[in-house]
């Protein structure tokens, strides 16, 4: 059987072939019947292929533009009880296609290695380790000692214990985090003292100390362990894949983020392409809309095909078009015209909008085919003369 299917390997795409395989196995078909089935499928597949010249880009744009009018504008979404709040709906779709550098709700799904993912207590501990903790989160009081010009921090011991940190460790972290400040552990807590500091400087020190980073992963502001299919997953608000990968309990092969630029930087452009697809389908499915995956893929491919993420904006994909008219007719026409005039750019009228402007057929669909005529006789001589 596999021989026969292999024959069609170059003709039919893999998912279809796999489906045929399982169908054939289920029905235990004879070889002749198999051949018949495969031929029929090949025939149907070939009639379903796209035509050359099809304006596939505009179809994709339409397929998104039309349903996006039906989307809700709800910024925050409460997807059930035990989920993080994430931006969804139209704003999120715009965010994805704009390739915004700072998404409004970055989030991660941190999967753990098998040995750590089973026990809720262990997972909770790891979650605490992930969360970005500042000094104010473990301190119960900040006091200024005017006489000694120092700051005393009273530490909440239980909170510190939850973090799995000892006071000596805390002192070490603090001295690293606060430069030129003496950090000492005393009975009443931790005292911070700078060299020759005025009173107002002590006050700023207090404020600075509050926000000093002491443990966790930077940018991760919330953590939430959730049970998913027999294992615990930590959902986070705030995304920082690079630092999460460093943590040994984390299964780095399954960590997911929704920050597309971060994925591009950490995992590369192919991963970013897939991330755009995933994020966009998430929005579409969440809104109960049905848009074929091919459209999402095309947008994602167009955004990433040059090796870096380009948003669908006047500075991104559209701004980098070859044609001056295409850029000028979108936004900021004056700027594009002047830049073009500066360098003496030439618009070769290869794409759609320039030809619309000039009332000429567009090079798409039925406007695409050209006739190439072998010129002979008097005309060809004339042409040669001109070239010479």
């Amino acid at each position: 059987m596999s021989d026969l299917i292999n024959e069609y390997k170059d003709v039919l795409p893999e998912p279809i072939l796999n489906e045929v395989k399982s169908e054939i196995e289920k029905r235990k078909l004879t070889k002749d019947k198999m051949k018949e089935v495969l031929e029929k499928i090949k025939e149907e597949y070939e009639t379903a292929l796209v035509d050359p010249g099809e304006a596939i880009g505009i179809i994709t744009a339409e397929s998104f533009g039309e349903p996006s009018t039906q989307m809700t504008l709800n910024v925050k979404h409460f997807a059930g009880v035990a989920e993080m709040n994430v931006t969804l709906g139209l704003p999120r779709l715009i965010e994805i296609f704009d390739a915004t550098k700072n998404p409004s709700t970055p989030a991660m799904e941190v999967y753990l290695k098998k040995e750590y993912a089973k026990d809720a207590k262990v997972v909770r501990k790891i979650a605490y380790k992930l969360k970005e903790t500042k000094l104010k989160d473990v301190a119960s009081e900040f006091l200024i000692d005017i006489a000694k010009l120092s700051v005393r921090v009273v530490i909440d011991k239980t909170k510190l214990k939850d973090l799995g940190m000892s006071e000596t460790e805390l002192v070490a972290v603090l001295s690293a985090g606060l430069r030129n400040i003496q950090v000492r552990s005393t009975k009443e807590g931790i005292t911070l003292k700078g060299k020759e500091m005025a009173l107002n400087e002590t006050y700023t020190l207090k404020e600075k100390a509050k926000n000093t980073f002491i443990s966790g992963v930077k940018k991760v502001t919330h953590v939430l362990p959730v049970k998913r299919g027999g294992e615990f997953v930590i959902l986070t608000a705030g995304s920082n894949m690079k630092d999460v990968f460093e943590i040994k309990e984390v299964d780095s092969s399954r960590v997911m983020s929704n920050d597309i630029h971060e994925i591009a930087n950490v995992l590369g452009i192919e991963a970013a392409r897939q991330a755009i697809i995933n994020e966009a389908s998430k929005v579409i499915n969440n809104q109960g809309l049905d848009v074929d995956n091919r459209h999402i893929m095309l947008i994602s491919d167009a955004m990433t095909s040059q090796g870096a993420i380009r948003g669908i904006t006047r500075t991104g994909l559209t701004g980098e078009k070859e044609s001056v008219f295409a850029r000028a007719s979108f936004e900021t026409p004056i700027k594009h015209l002047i830049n073009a005039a500066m360098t003496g750019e030439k618009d070769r009228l290869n794409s759609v909008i320039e030809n619309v402007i000039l009332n000429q057929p567009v090079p798409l669909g039925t406007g695409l085919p050209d006739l190439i005529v072998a010129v002979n006789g008097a005309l060809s001589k004339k042409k040669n003369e001109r070239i010479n």
Partner: protein
Amino acid sequence: MPEEYVSKVVDSIEFGFLSPQDIKKIATVKIVTPELYDKEGYPVDGGLMDIRLGVIDPGLRCKTCGGKLKECLGHFGYIEMARPVIHLKGINIILAFLRSVCRECSEILLDNEAKEKFIAKLDVLEKEKGINAKRKEINALVNKLKNIRKCPHCKSKQFKINLEKPTTIVENDTRVFPIEIKDRLEKINDDNVTTLGLNPEKCRPEWMVLTLLPIPPVTIRPSITLETGERSEDDLTHKLGDIVRINQRLFENINAGAPEIIVEDLWDLLQYHITTFFDNSTAAVPPARHRSGEPLKTITERIKSKEGRFRHNLTGKRVNYSARTLVSPDPMIGMNEVGVPLEVAMELSVPERVTEWNMERLKEFIQRGHLIYPGSNYVVRPDGKKKKITEESKEQLIEELQPGFLVERHLMDGDISIFNRQPSLHRMSIMCHKVRILPGRSFRLNPSVCTPYNADFDGDEMNLHIPQSEEAIAEAEILMEVQTQIITPKNGMNIVASIQDAITGNYLLTRNKEMKREDAVGLLLSIGVENVDSLPKTKMVTGKDAFSVLLPEDFDFISYSQDCEKCSKGGKDKCPDDLCVFIKNGELLSGVIDGDYIGEGSGHILRTLYAQYGPSKAIGILGNISKIGIRYLLNTGFSTGLMDADLTEDVKGQIKNIIDDAEKKVKILIEDYDNGKLEAFPSKTLKETLELKILEVLNKTRNKAGDVVVANSKEDNPSIIMANSGARGNSMNLAQIAALVGQQALRGERVNKGYRQRTLSIFKRGDLSPSPHGFIRNGYKQGLQPAEFFFHAMTGRDSLMDTALRTPKSGYLYRRLANALQDLKIEYDATVRSSDGSIVQFKYGDDGIDISRSESGTINVKRIVRNLCDK
């Protein structure tokens, strides 16, 4: 055959600035006076309306080319500036060059080695990343060079150069006048100009200092004659008048040896006028205004924004041979037809080429003229001359008529037209229909194509276009006709389908037990089906039999219901419960036809018909199915009313119990919360947890009440029939009318806004129970309490806001997507490429399948295997 005209194609367009030499070369007049007309109202020579610049008055001839109005496109003139003036849009170029070039030796402030390195880097950048990257790099260099205070070549001192917006350049606190700027820029050699990113043939930096100003032709700034006979000039003419006037005064003052202060003042004024001539919305410049106070529209404003030249005129074209009027429904015309009023048909026309064979026929059209239908409006001669057909000209035109002429005859049944409804969000918003002339004054439209157009009949207007060449007609007919657009490329589902009454009708018809054979025949005949042989020849037939007549004789279709696998009754070709649809040899054996089979987005029967018999046949069958549904409904009568929502006392009691129950539950939750017994969800506060739990309970209440209403409604309740058949509405709608409206959610929460700790002043502070937070326990039929009504209005307003804010946002997203992706196309090698030839995908969607030719985006392997193996 007539001579064919060869039309030329624009191959490419180059951009560049006009050099002073160019300006002189293209100019036909030197403008010397701000006066426009003399006493007789004739344009002054050397004035801004000089007839050497082109003509805008009918009757006059252009002195340059001799063309009349509309023949002459206009010609440029020029003025000589008394003193050079800076071009506002070139100020960045000027600044960049002054900053990065030595003020003494005019060399770039880089030593030779660094310069060479830089040039090499630029070349690589341009090749690899394109022109934008190169521009960025040059800007970075300029930013670096502006801080160099000593020229590496001649060792002379450099100064800081600043720009005082918009056009004043200051070096070391002293102003640099345009004359000096020009001198400095002129000294820079071409190589250095190239290095700094300009193409010296197209743009030299000193050209940004204007010594000559081109005067645009009058044809782009036509004046209008008011009713009073007064002339009103264009904004540009006004501005140019200012420029010429000030320029002349500056000349006079300089020649008269006026003090430098006066000259400089005039010079600045001239600069102001030139600046606002180019752009009247620059930040630092007060806009020039009309006497009425309205800002002038000058060159930049003409090009920019949605109403500007690009988006309004160049990419948006207006057409002839089009019509627009109200649309109204007509289920009895075909889906690929459009009903056109006679008035429209006599105005629009189709060009028909005269040949030897149709000459006599076309002569008849001319003979009838433009007032008798079907006549004709114009005759076009091969040389392009168009002649109107009137009573007087008729005879002569008929005599003249020869093969090769075009006759523009009235629109007739069967002509090809293109029908459109805005907003044209997808390609199904513009489809091709066959014309059908009908009485009345509105376009008639089959309701089945409402979905693709997103049309309804509450006053919608639509546009009709008549293609005017054989090519266009063929393309429209082959590629755009309704039947080719049944499957949407969005997701491979059908978008043309039966809607509303057509679905209800089929549901009732196929559910109906029996009818007289005569009635069935009558039904079929009334929708135009004359071949009723396949109807059983018994006295009584079923609705299913009548439906089967519409199907092709070899059509097989099986669809199992959701619970079929659990069903033990079996039945290989008939479902005993009438749940699964079995069609064998074109006969509906069991099952009720509802929205799932013939409706939009899921019409399984439709899609199978489409795949099996092709577009034309499928649309015919669909048309018949819709028609029979509507006709059946018409015959049996079907209506909905308030009676549908009547409930018995018993049901009312049940619903009251459900609501009381829910309120009790909420009370318990609140008590738990107050006593601290409630446990918070992870990462949620106690209050949030309470709100979520209450919301859950209350939302369930409405569903429960809905179930009770449906369970206790009679089977022939029209609202329930509509909901069950998938024609319109759902059981929830009925529940909201009959039982209760339910919880009003505002941004995913209960209503919490209003006064301190309460939503309205009639409630107690801090009351967390359902009713003060938007729970509506009455149905629409009973009527709402004042507070309830208010909460309902709140959510209503909220959703209204949402729609109003969303529409422009999604519209802009769509515009950007369309602009970014419009050049992507499938190449002959099956790759997806952009217009510059760069590959975006190697195979479209990894498998090259056209979604509108697929079944929900794939090849239906199961169906093929079943068809081949189960026979």
